[in-house]
C-alpha cells in the first residue's frame, strides 16, 4: 500500500505520540499500517524487525581512552624487529600531541590462541580463551583524533554533536522487549569525554534516550524509590485516582493519544519501581557467578559488576547496554575518564587496564553462552580509536584514528575470523578498510534492520545512522 494513503491519520498519531513527522519514515520502514499504528500508540512498543534478526540485544564494552591495537589484538612482528627505527610513512600530526616517528615495539608477550590461532597480547589471559567466538575487525578507522569527537563518531556516525547514537537508533527502530525497563542503558564510572553526547538521542524523540547509570552512585535510577513518607498502598491509591480522573479528562475532549499514553506511563513507572531494582540486583546471583566475573576481585570489581548487570539486563529484554570502562586499577597517570589513554607508558597503562576489564569481559561471554543468550546477544569490544605505532615520549603512544581493532562476538557473528588488516606496522588500515558507518550497517543488519531504510527526517533531511555510507561486512556474519 502506498504510504501516502496512510499519511493523514498516521500523521496525527505520530505528532501526538511525540514521534513527530520524521516517523513517517519509520512507518515506511515498518511497512504496514498495523505495525505503524502499534509504533505510534506506544513509541517503545516492540516492533518486528524487517528481516530475521540474528541478535536481539547489544552489549557494547567501550574501552574508554582507546587501547592500542598493536598491544592487544593486532600482532605485528615487524614492530618488534624494528624497535627504535624510523617508522616509514609516519605522520607526526596523526595524534593529539607530536610523535617521535620512531617505532615502539609492543612490550607484551604475544601468543596464539584457540583453533583460529589468533594472536593475543599477554594482557588478556581470560579473553584469549574466547578468540574463537570473536570476529576481529583490524581495519577500523575514523576521522577524529581526540576522545570526545571520536567517541561521538564511533557511536553516532559523525563527530559533530547532535546526532543520535546507535543505541537510540536501534530503540527507535525496534522498540523495547520489556516495557518495564528502559530499553537503552549506559553504565559508566567517571563520565567519559563527550558525556551524554555519546549516548544522545540527538534529534530523535527523547523516548529513545539512554538511561545512564553512574557506578559511583551505585548505579541508581533517579526517582525510582518511593518517598519515605508514602506507602505502597498510598501510592496505589493515588494512581487509581489519577487513572480515573485522567480518563474523565480525556473523555470530555477530542481524542488525543498522548493523553492516553500519559495515563499508561504512570502504571509503567509504578511497575518499573519493582522491575528495575530486581533487574539490577546482582546480590541475588550465585557466588560462583559472582566469582566468575571477578566481583570479589578489587582490581576488576567495578567492571565485573557492570558486566554482570549487563547480562541481567539483556536477559530481561533490554535492547542496548553500553559500559564505559572506568578508572584503571593500576593508575599510571592516565586520566580516570580515559583509562586506556596510554600516552606516557603503554606497558603499565595497558597492563592495569587489562587487569581491570579482562576477567569480567571474558566471564560475560562465558556466562551468556552458558545461558544460551550469546546467540541473541551481540557483544562488541573496542575503543574510540587506536594508538600510534611510533612512540610518544619514550614508551607511550599517541591517538591514532587511522587503524584500530574492534571485535564482535555472539549474535550472528562468525567466530575466529580476522577481517581487514593494518599495514606491517599496524599504523594504518590498508586492507578491507572498515569505516564506522560499515560497523553500524553491520550492527543494524544483525539486529534485523536495513541501515538505508532506518531514517528520520530532521530539518529538511532524512538522516541515517550511517549517513551516506555504510556497507554490511558480510565476511563476519555467521
Amino acid at each position: 500500500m502506498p504510504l501516502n494513503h496512510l499519511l493523514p491519520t498516521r500523521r496525527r498519531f505520530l505528532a501526538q505520540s511525540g514521534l513527530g513527522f520524521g516517523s513517517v519514515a519509520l512507518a515506511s520502514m515498518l511497512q504496514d499500517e498495523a505495525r505503524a499504528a502499534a509504533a505510534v500508540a506506544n513509541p517503545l512498543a516492540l516492533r518486528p524487525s524487517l528481516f530475521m534478526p540474528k541478535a536481539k540485544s547489544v552489549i557494547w564494552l567501550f574501552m574508554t581512552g582507546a587501547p592500542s591495537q598493536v598491544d592487544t589484538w593486532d600482532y605485528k612482528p615487524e614492530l618488534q624487529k624494528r624497535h627504535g627505527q624510523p617508522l616509514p610513512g609516519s605522520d607526526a600530526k596523526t595524534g593529539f600531541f607530536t610523535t617521535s616517528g620512531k617505532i615502539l615495539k609492543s612490550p607484551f608477550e604475544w601468543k596464539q590462541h584457540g583453533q583460529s590461532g589468533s594472536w593475543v597480547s599477554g594482557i588478556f589471559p581470560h579473553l584469549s580463551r574466547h578468540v574463537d567466538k570473536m570476529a576481529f575487525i583490524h581495519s577500523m578507522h575514523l576521522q577524529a583524533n581526540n576522545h570526545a569527537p571520536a567517541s561521538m563518531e564511533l557511536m553516532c556516525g559523525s563527530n559533530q554533536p547532535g546526532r543520535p547514537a546507535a543505541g537510540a537508533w536501534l530503540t527507535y527502530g525496534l522498540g523495547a522487549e520489556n516495557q518495564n525497563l528502559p530499553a537503552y542503558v549506559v553504565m559508566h564510572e567517571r563520565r567519559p569525554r563527550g558525556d551524554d553526547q555519546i549516548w544522545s538521542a540527538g534529534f530523535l524523540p527523547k523516548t529513545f534516550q539512554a538511561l545512564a547509570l553512574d557506578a559511583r552512585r551505585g548505579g541508581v535510577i533517579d526517582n525510582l524509590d518511593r518517598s519515605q513518607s508514602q506507602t505502597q498502598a498510598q501510592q496505589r491509591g493515588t494512581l487509581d485516582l489519577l487513572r480515573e480522573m485522567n480518563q474523565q479528562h480525556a473523555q470530555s475532549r477530542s481524542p488525543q493519544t498522548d493523553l492516553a499514553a500519559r495515563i499508561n506511563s504512570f502504571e509503567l513507572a509504578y511497575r518499573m519501581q519493582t522491575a528495575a531494582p530486581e533487574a539490577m540486583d546482582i546480590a541475588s546471583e550465585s557466588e560462583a557467578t559472582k566469582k566468575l566475573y571477578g566481583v570479589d576481585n578489587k582490581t576488576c570489581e567495578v567492571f565485573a559488576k557492570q558486566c554482570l548487570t549487563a547480562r541481567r539486563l539483556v536477559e530481561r529484554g533490554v535492547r542496548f547496554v553500553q559500559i564505559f570502562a572506568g578508572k584503571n586499577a593500576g593508575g599510571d597517570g592516565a586520566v580516570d575518564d580515559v583509562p586506556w589513554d596510554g600516552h606516557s607508558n603503554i606497558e603499565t597503562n595497558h597492563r592495569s587496564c587489562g587487569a581491570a576489564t579482562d576477567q569480567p569481559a571474558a566471564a560475560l561471554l562465558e556466562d551468556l553462552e552458558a545461558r544460551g543468550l550469546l546467540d541473541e546477544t551481540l557483544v562488541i569490544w573496542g575503543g574510540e580509536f587506536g594508538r600510534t605505532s611510533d612512540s610518544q615520549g619514550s614508551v607511550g603512544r599517541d591517538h591514532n584514528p587511522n587503524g584500530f581493532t574492534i571485535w564482535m562476538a555472539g549474535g550472528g557473528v562468525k567466530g575466529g575470523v580476522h577481517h581487514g588488516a593494518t599495514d606491517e606496522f599496524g599504523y594504518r588500515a590498508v586492507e578491507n578498510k572498515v569505516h564506522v558507518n560499515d560497523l553500524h550497517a553491520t550492527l543494524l543488519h544483525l539486529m534485523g534492520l536495513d541501515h538505508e531504510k532506518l531514517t528520520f527526517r530532521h530539518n529538511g533531511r532524512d538522516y541515517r545512522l550511517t549517513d551516506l555510507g555504510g556497507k554490511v561486512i558480510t565476511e563476519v556474519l555467521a
Partner: protein
Amino acid sequence: MLLRHFYTALFLAGLASRAFSADTNDQLAFFESKIRPVLAQNCFECHSAQAQQNKKLKAGLLLDSKAGVLHGGETGPALVAGKPADSLLMKVLRHEIKGAEMPPKGALRSGVIADFAKWIEMGAADPRSGAAPVVEHKRVIDVKSGQGWWAFRPLAAPALPKVKNNAWIQTPVDAFILAQQEAKGVAPNSLAAKEQLLRRATFDLTGLAPTAEEQAAFLQDSSADAYERLVDRLLASKHYGERWGRHWLDVVRFAESNGYEFDAFRAGAYHYRDWVIDALNADMPYDQFIRMQLAGDKLMPGELDGARAVGFLVAGPYPGQITAKTREKIRYDQIDDMVSTIGSGMLGVSMGCVRCHDHKFDPLPQKDYYGIAAALATTVHSPEKIDLKHAETQKLLVRHHAAAAPLLAALKQYETHELPKRLAAWKRDDMPKLAASTPWQVFDVQSATAQKARLTSDRDGHVIYLGNKEKDDTYTIKVVTYQKGIRAFRLDALSDPTLPNKGPGLSDNGNFVLGDVKIIARPLDKQNKTKPVTLDLAAGTVTFEQKRFEFAQAVDNSPNTGWGVAPKMSKDHAATFEVEGDAAGFDGGTEFEVQLRFSGFFGLGNLRLAFAQEAKTALTAETDMQSLRELQSMPAAATADALVTRWFARIDPQAKKLLASIAEHEKKRPQPLLTEVYTTKQGGEDVYFLRRGEVDRKEGKANPDFIQVLMRNGSADKWTGTPKPKEQPKHPRIALGDWMTDAHSGGGPLLARVIANRVWRFHFGRGIVATPNDLGTQGTPPTHPELLEHLAERLVAQGWKLKPLHREIMLSATYMQSGAMNEGNQRVDPDNQLWWYRPARRLEAEAIRDALLQLGGRLDPAMHGPSITDVASPRRSVYLRVKRSELVPFLTMFDAPEPTQSIGDRGNTTVPTQALTVMNSPFVRDMAARFATRIKAAKPEQTIAQAFLLAFCRQPTPAETQRLTAYLQAQQQLGAKSPEIELCLALLSLNEFIYVD
C-alpha cells in the same frame, strides 16, 4: 618519429602537462614499466572505456587514456602534472579521502604508491590516446524556476475569502480558517469557557499560570473587551519575553558551553539570552532583531547591545581541543554551524546539506552556501570585555582628554625648551660625579603582564605581583635598552614584607619555583628589519639553590622542573644567565621579552631584571640607577623624546613633577564598567569553496554572496554595496542582514513567512507549515497557505512588530475555540488539519517546572543575569544554566532539546521516567508540600476548591469534590501524615495540570 609527431599534436591541443618540455623516453619507459600495468590490473575494471561499455564506469573517470586522466571524473582532474601533493589520484591512493579509498579492495603497496608520486612529479608522461569521458551532467539548478516555489515568491496580500458564517469571524485569521472548514463541511467549535481562555492565554504568553488575583479580576470583568485587555496586559508583561525568548533560544541552539571534549563554560554567554528577552519585551521589530543578531557588533560597535545580540552567531558548539590535523576542519565546522542555523532558524531552508553539494531538492546551489559562509568568514568566538555604559564612558573620556591637554602642553614645552638645557648642564656638572660601580644595569620595564596574575612595575624596574594567584602562570616582562653587546642577564627575587613569609615567592612559605626562562630579543627601531631572536641561555651564578630544585633546571626547557630557594626564604636572591653565542642587542635599541614560567602556585612576588655586557659577571650589588652608559648610547635623535624625559625624571625635579601631574590626571581616567560577554571577534581567515565540503579540496576563495533564488535583482551588490574610495567597506554581515530583511527583493518575504509560521506554531502546537525549520520542497506543505501569506504580509506591513501579530492570532475565534469533541467533524477531519477544535497542549519542560514553583509559592520573578547552576533555585527555568554536557535532567526529560542544532518543533514525548519524577522526586514532593500549606482550609471541600482554583483555574465539580474527599480520607486511613500533600501531589500529576486547554 611517429610518436614525436603525436606528442606535438597533444601539446598543441593544450593537453601537454608540462609546458615546453616533451616527455622523455625515460619518463615514458617509467610509465610503461611502473604505471600502466598497475592501472590495468587495479583500476580499469571501473575506470576504462570497457567499463563504460559494461555500465561499470565509476565516478565518470576514465584512466585508460591520457585525456581521461587529465579531464578527470565527477570530482575533477585525476592529477596535476608535476604536483603529486595536489593530485587527487595520490590522495585516493593514499586513502586520504573518506569514501574514495582506491583501489577499494585495499591500498597498493607503498612502493607502488611512491612510483605514482614519482611519475606525477616527473610530469605524468603518458603516451595513450583515447577520448575523455562524457560525464553526465548533474541536476542543474534553475534559479528562475526556483523562484516560483511558494515560499520564495514576493509577498502578496491575499484577499479575505468569502464565508457564510460571518458572525463567527473575529479577526481576518478566522476568514481563512472558516473558508476551508466550510468547503469541507466542518463547523468550528464554540468559544472556550472564560476560565480556560484565561489559563490558555496566560500560559501561552507568559509560561505561568494565572494567579488567584488575576483570576478574580478577569472572571469578574464582564465588559465586552475584557479578553482583549487581558491579551494586551499579558503582552505587556515582562514574562512575555522570558516565555517567547525561550522559544527563540530553541531555534538558535543556545547554550553556554563549548560542548565536545571538556565543554568549557562560557561565562558571558547569558548576555545573549537577556538580550533576546529584552528585545522581545520591547517588541523590537523582527527585521531589526535579525539584523542585530547577524551584525550587532558592527552596527553598534563597543556597545553592550551590539555585543550581546551577536551571541547568536557564537552560540553553537566548539571543540575545546584542537589539533594540527583538525584545525582547518573545525574552522569550517564553525562556519557551518552559523550558516546552518541561519538557514534553518531564520530562513527555513536546510543550508547544512549545501556544504557538500547542491541541494538535492531545493534550488540552493553550493555557491549560495559559500557566499553566506564568506560573509561570516572573519567572525570568531571570543569572550570580550564590554563596557556596560559605553556611551557615557566615551563622553567622559572626551572630557578627560580635554583636561589633559594643558598638562601635555606643559610637558611638550619642557621637552622642547627646558630638557636640552638641563640635560647639558647635568652632563657637565653632575655626571662626572657618578661612577659606574657595578657591571649590572637595571632594565627599564615597559610592560609586565601575566596569563592570570595581575602585575605592576615601578620606575626602578621592580615588577610586583598584585593578585590573582593561579597555577602554572607565565609572566611576560618587556624591557628595553639602547645598549648592545649584552652577555648576561640577572634576575633579582626580592623579599617584601607584604608577601607570605616576606617572600620572595608567593607560596605560603615564601618560596617560588622558576620553571623556565625564555628571552626574545626584538629590534626597537622599526627600520631595523632583523628578525626577533630567542636567546640561548645558560645558568650562571646564583645566591642559593634548593636541593632538587637546582638553578640549572630553570634553563632546561622543561617547565616541570625549576629553581627554588627553600629553606632560605624571607631574603633577597639573585641569579644570572649567560647568553650563549653572539652577544645580544640591536642597532637602534632592543626590546627584550622575558618570559618567566612558574611551576604550580610558586610565582614570584617582587622581582627585577638587569643586564651586563661582560660574561661571567659576578653577583654584585647593583646601583639603584641605570648607568650613564644608557644615556650615552641613546641615539642622538632621541635626546628630546619622551623616553629621555622619563629617564631624566629620576634626576630632574621638574621633569618628575610634570610626569607626576600627568600620572595623577591619568588616575582619574574614567573607567569603563566592564562585563564579560561571549561574543564575536574579528579573526579567522578567508573561506574557500570546498569540493564536497572537504577542507583539503579548496577551489578558490569565496566572496560574500546570498541565496540566488532570494535575490530578485539577481546580484548581491545591492546589499554589499560598492566601497567608495577612503570609505570603510560595508561589513559583509551587515549586508547579509540587509539582504535577509529586504522584504521587496531580498530574503524578507521568506524571513517573514518563517517567523509568522513559528508564532502560529507556538500558539497552536503545529505550524501552518508543520516543519517550521523547512519551508522548502522537503517540508510539509502549508495547511492554510493564504493565511500564512496574510500573516507574513501583515507582519511586514506593521513594521515587523510581533506583538500585533500575537494579538491578531489570539483575538481570533479560531484561537478561542474550545477543545470539545464533535463526532461529525471528527469523521471528516480527525487530524484537526482544519482547526475545528483547540487541542489540549502539554506545557513545555520549562513551563512545567515554573508552574510547579509557582504553585509551591516559591517562584522568584527576578529577571536577567548570570545563569543559575543550582537546579533547586526558585528562579525561572529560562535562567538555568545550559551546559551542553550537563543539561538539566528535569528539563531534558520533558523534551527540552539538545542545543546543538536549530530546533523548530520540540518533541512531546511521554516516558515512564517522567511519571517517576512526578511521583517520587524530592523536588515535586517539596512543591506539593508547599502547595498544601497554601490551600489547606478548615473543611476538605474548601481545600479541594482552593487547590483546583490554583492548579486548574476552575471550580471542582460536585463529583470531583466527592471523589477527592474520599481520597483524602482513604489516604489518612492508610497512614498519610498529611493527606493534603498527597492530594496536591495527585493534582500536580494529573493531565489537566500539564495539558492546557
